[in-house]
């Protein structure tokens, strides 16, 4: 109870580590007001949740950089990102906002562009994983999506030991590399 509240920088560091407590704290603090704003500006609840989640992911990705320092409050950053994402979405649907606020259409443009490129890259990676064929698809998914250890994978896939499974994994990575870079 007497624990001092974590500073915003500490929160961000914990967020980067994927700490549930830090994430939840940031989420709860800003969720309501941002959702309210989007709904007020013509979005429905689903739109609003999507935008907010995307902004949280952007913040998370930003926090991954070791030298990352936020020049403003977390809430300000999240709100600006959400506004920007929402304006973008409206523009895509050829709708405009009644209370046009040009300023937010440009806020943190670099972060959003980087995020979009990253998402595209991840999409391509996921698609390549789907095309790779068995057993590689399952093996790589088990390791890189389900967070299984090599030991578990060895027993699941019937390899005699973890080292054999590892060798198989490297083979699969080679295939993936060829698919990904040569397609």
């Amino acid at each position, binding site marked *: 109870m007497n624990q001092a509240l974590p500073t915003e920088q500490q929160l961000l560091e914990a967020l980067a580590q994927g700490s549930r407590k830090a994430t939840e704290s940031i*989420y709860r603090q800003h969720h309501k007001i941002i959702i309210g704003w989007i709904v007020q500006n013509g979005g429905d609840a689903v739109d609003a949740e999507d935008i907010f*989640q995307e902004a949280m992911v952007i913040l998370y990705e930003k926090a991954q950089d070791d030298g990352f320092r936020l020049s403003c409050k977390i809430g300000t950053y999240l709100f600006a990102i959400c506004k920007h994402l929402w304006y973008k979405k409206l523009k895509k649907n050829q709708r405009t906002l009644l209370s046009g606020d040009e300023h937010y259409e440009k806020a943190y443009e670099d972060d959003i562009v980087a995020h979009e490129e990253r998402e595209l890259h991840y999409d391509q990676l996921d698609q390549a994983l789907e095309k790779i064929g068995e057993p590689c698809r399952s093996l790589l998914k088990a390791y890189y999506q389900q967070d299984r250890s090599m030991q578990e994978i060895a027993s699941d896939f019937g390899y005699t030991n973890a080292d054999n499974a590892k060798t198989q994994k490297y083979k699969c990575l*080679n295939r993936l590399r060829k698919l990904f870079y040569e397609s």
Partner: protein
Amino acid sequence: MTQENNIWEVAEKYVAGTLSTTALNSLHQRLQQDAAYSTLFHEHLNLIQSLENNKKQKQFRTLLQSIKTVQTPTSKKIRTIPLSTHYWRTAGIAAGIAIITTLSTFWMIRHNENQRASQYTMLRKELENIKRSQSAIINNINESKTNAPTIAASVSGTGVALSNNGYFITNYHVVEGSDSVYMQNAAGEYFKANLIAFDKNSDVALLKVDDKKFKFSKTDLPYNFASGKNNIGATVFTLGFPDNEVVYNEGYISAKNGFDGDSMQYLLNIPSKSGHSGAPVINKAGSIIGLIAANNTEATTTTYAVSSSAIYNLIKDLPVQIKLPKNSQLKNLDRSQQVEKLQAFTCSVKVFKH
């Protein structure tokens, strides 16, 4: 194949940060010397980093989803509140409600009383802090032989003569609560005046200059007072003293009833500001139809004027008979001539309070 596997292993360890210092050093050395190896290694490294980061991001998204679905679990926890805290909280809430109730009741009562104040701004001018007028008064002391006041006035308004021998009229709210009243004529001379009669409801006050020999002008009153209401649309003008100088404004009658449907008032569209209270409103024919009393807080050209019938009502039951002129001599004059003749009969009213 073993070399390929080796690259994956090094890249994996590099990402995880588990390479030994010597291994890391030899890697850096090789990356610098062997360009082909460097390209190959970075390809492997990028793929592993992408896979790892993609994994982390997916985990984070899952975390967000679980936070979203578990709505406010903390508030559902059972909390125990110490008795003392509980007591104070209850007492606090009770006290809060009591205060709010008291204040809102008080406010409602006050609000009813001051209903006018919300939109209705009386146009007397508060002068307490205006040094300029103080020095003006001091100058006037030096210039005039009349018994001018020695302190600054608190409130100022405008007055208009009812008779040449010193009776003049203004708004009651101008002189309300006064200790002494002085009128300053068009020539800038001060004369002490006494309150003779007033009607708080219609907001008119009758005053008389103390000096028995006082005369507004050598001639008699050139205007009369309208006995009934003028029609809407009639053009009107005013002469008032918002500052130390007489100011002319013109406008028209917007409605026959004033603020909140007050039948003793007109609604005018004419500019007005503080200091205009009591300023005569004159129609084209040179009859005074009323006195400016207030304006609307939200629009300064929306002005309320007390109708001249309020003046008739005030003077009809007085022990002294004040005979108002029957006809106006301003009828056939042009506006600037009308104003010129009127000026001698309008005055600034300076009110002094403790």
